[in-house]
């Protein structure tokens, strides 16, 4: 551990705060639940009985860890795949890969989705206080990359207050927060480097294995330096000490026989430093695991939650402000425009309604990054706005169709041009019909806005997951998150109902 005082109490709010009393209760409840799960069967016995070692990893983490074989779809390859297979063999069972988002590997391990988490998981005090770790199997460095044309980045400290990309809840994430940089969370390893090239972040701090493969090959980027060493180890559920002991023994055998470094060599990640993994002693394991900490939900976290709610609100209101006029336009073109424009509008609606908004966000932010340089927040507003416009178009079209035809004729007979008739007579009445649908969509959008976390925007749900991992509990952060969503959506539906009541009279 290069940062022995990596205390989660300091993170990520960077302020000491009194722990919430309820946290204790929730933590207790969580512990009770965990111990119940653990009682079901000691780990090793269960693994042996089932003949399978289920290991959780994220294929999106990519090379060289664990990824889908491009030649044989569905088959996994990577140095951790080989490691998992070697370990399983030592335990006399078969290895089975279980896909899981990297940032939630630990919570998924705790709830029993797999037996072990094995995916470049760094030993951090927060994690050490939460799960059992085996002895480490790989030593790495945190490597900082910056743009070649940006000479201002010379060390970690030069990024104080600036945007730096990394994986949420990783060792690099914690180091960045401690440095005072604005850590931007990503879900994958490719995206932060795309954003660095695009100028959306000013540095990327990641494990050197990732930097080597995904960052350094990019012509516009340069290595600033290595900042801090860390270890990958296998995470095991608390209470399953027998499984951990068996894995430790297996690791020793694999390391001593030379198999471990042979695997590293095959993947081009071996170095003299890895000999330490072979010579590693139990005393060293005890030492790196001795520093444990548990963060608590405090006022600082609350402030972060409120900030994230503001982002959620901003994204939702912005997207709706875009979706409504665009939707009205699409609806009117479909109803009254020339045939070719109507077909175009229909295609738009089908395209944006018929494909996942997540995909659209990816394409808009990463796919079109070369053509359209948007910052994450603008891309979030634009992406959701374009998507919801398709829904608004249908809501307004239904609204317009519900207005009796005579209303348009009456307006035209008074000498109103078509546009004026639509604006003054048809649309106000259509709006009345559409209002409940629009309200509905806005509330749906408020919740869908959580999807923009895939393009590195920290909104309310993302904040909740980051905090939940920090404080080892999903209950209280989850409840707080739900409360904040309700605090935003409920006044909105009340407002809409009052507006409906007012319009009802006419």
């Amino acid at each position, binding site marked *: 551990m290069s940062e022995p005082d990596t205390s989660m109490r300091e993170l990520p709010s960077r302020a000491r705060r009194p722990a919430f009393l309820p946290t204790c209760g929730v933590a207790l409840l969580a512990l009770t639940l965990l111990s119940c799960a653990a009682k079901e069967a000691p780990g090793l016995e269960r693994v042996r009985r089932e003949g399978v070692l289920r290991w959780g990893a994220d294929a999106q983490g990519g090379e060289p860890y664990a990824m889908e074989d491009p030649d044989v779809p569905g088959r996994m390859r990577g140095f951790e795949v080989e490691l998992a297979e070697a370990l399983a063999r030592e335990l006399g069972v078969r290895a089975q890969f279980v896909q899981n988002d990297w940032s939630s590997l630990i919570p998924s391990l705790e709830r029993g989705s797999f037996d072990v988490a094995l995916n470049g998981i760094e030993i951090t005090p927060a994690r050490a206080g939460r799960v059992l770790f085996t002895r480490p199997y790989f030593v790495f460095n945190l490597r900082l990359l910056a743009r070649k044309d940006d000479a201002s980045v010379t060390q970690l400290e030069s990024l104080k207050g600036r945007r730096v990309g990394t994986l949420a809840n990783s060792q690099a994430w914690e180091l960045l927060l401690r440095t005072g940089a604005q850590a931007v969370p990503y879900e994958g390893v490719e995206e932060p480097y795309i954003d660095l090239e695009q100028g959306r972040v000013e540095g990327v701090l990641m494990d050197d294995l990732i930097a080597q493969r995904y960052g350094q090959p990019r012509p516009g980027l340069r290595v600033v330096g290595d900042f801090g060493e860390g270890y990958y180890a296998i995470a095991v559920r608390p209470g399953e000490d027998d499984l951990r002991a068996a894995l430790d023994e297996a690791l020793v055998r694999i390391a001593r026989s030379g198999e471990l470094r042979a695997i590293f060599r095959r993947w081009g990640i071996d170095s003299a430093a890895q000999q330490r993994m072979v010579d590693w002693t139990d005393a060293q394991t005890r030492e790196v695991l001795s520093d444990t900490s548990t963060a608590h939900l405090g006022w600082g976290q609350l402030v972060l939650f409120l900030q994230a709610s503001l982002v959620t609100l901003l994204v939702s209101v912005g997207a709706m402000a875009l979706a409504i006029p665009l939707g009205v336009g699409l609806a009117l073109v479909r109803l009254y425009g020339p045939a070719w424009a109507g077909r175009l509008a229909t295609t738009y609606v089908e395209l944006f309604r018929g494909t996942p908004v997540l995909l659209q966000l990816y394409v808009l932010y990463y796919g079109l990054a070369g053509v359209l340089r948007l910052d994450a927040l603008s891309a979030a507003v634009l992406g959701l706005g374009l998507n919801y416009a398709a829904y608004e178009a249908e809501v307004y079209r239904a609204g317009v169709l519900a207005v*009796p035809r*005579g*209303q348009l*004729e*009456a*307006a*035209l*007979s*008074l*000498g*109103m*041009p*078509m546009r*004026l008739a639509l604006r*003054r*007579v048809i649309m*106000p*009445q259509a709006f*009345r019909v559409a209002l409940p649908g629009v309200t509905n969509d806005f509330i749906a959008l408020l919740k869908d806005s959580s999807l923009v976390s895939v393009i590195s925007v920290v909104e309310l749900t993302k904040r909740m997951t980051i905090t939940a991992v920090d404080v080892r509990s999903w209950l209280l952060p989850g409840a707080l998150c739900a409360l904040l969503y309700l605090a935003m959506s409920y006044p909105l539906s009340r407002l809409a109902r009052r507006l409906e009541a007012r*319009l009802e*009279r*006419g």
Partner: protein
Amino acid sequence: MIEVKDLCKRYEGRTVLDGISAAFGPGEVVALVGPSGGGKSTLLRCLNGLEPFDGGTVRVGDDVLEPGDTRAQGERLWRIRRRVGFVFQQWHLFAHRTALGNVTEAPIHVKGLRREDAIEQGRALLAKVGLSHREAAYPSELSGGEQQRVAIARALAMEPEVLLLDEPTSALDPERVGELVDLLARLRGDGLTLVTVTHEMRFARELASRMLVLHGGRIIEEGPPSRVLASPQHARTRAFLGLDRVAGLPPLGS
């Protein structure tokens, strides 16, 4: 004022208007009568471009409507519509506007009248149709007769030279017809040209200076109502008025 020449319209292979020519002068009140499907309402709707036609012309002052898509005729069409008001059978009041709002909408947004002026004019018009006390009511809060009078006031607010009325008596209680006749007679006194489609012969006789009988898309007979009703020349007119079939009974609507 309005002049129609050789007006033809086909609809789904059927001839609805078959070469209609007629002129409606200033201050004239003309009743269009005839059996259902005879083309009365279609003719009326053609007069202010609500319905496109296939042949002939409609001339209002210097502006001429031509066959084909009315929407493509832009400015000319809007000018005609501003000079020719229309009162629909079902009135079609703007459901989201009060009585006064209905009357002021077009003057403000089409004519560009100042809001205060439009409101002043609107109140005067509502007074003229006897609805001053209902200016803040929404259409859904008004009776049928009241809605019709608001619809007339709304059309008058554009200060048209011609007012077209489609079956104005059909949705009225019989006792209200008299009030409508009084109102329209006053408008005629103001020099307005009125063209009305009707089935009510008493209404036509009391109000109209001229009557056109339409059948099969043609004008088969025309003249003062007293003459047409008393001694129709055309067999079809007699049949329509029920004179041939059920002798001895008074004509329809009397």
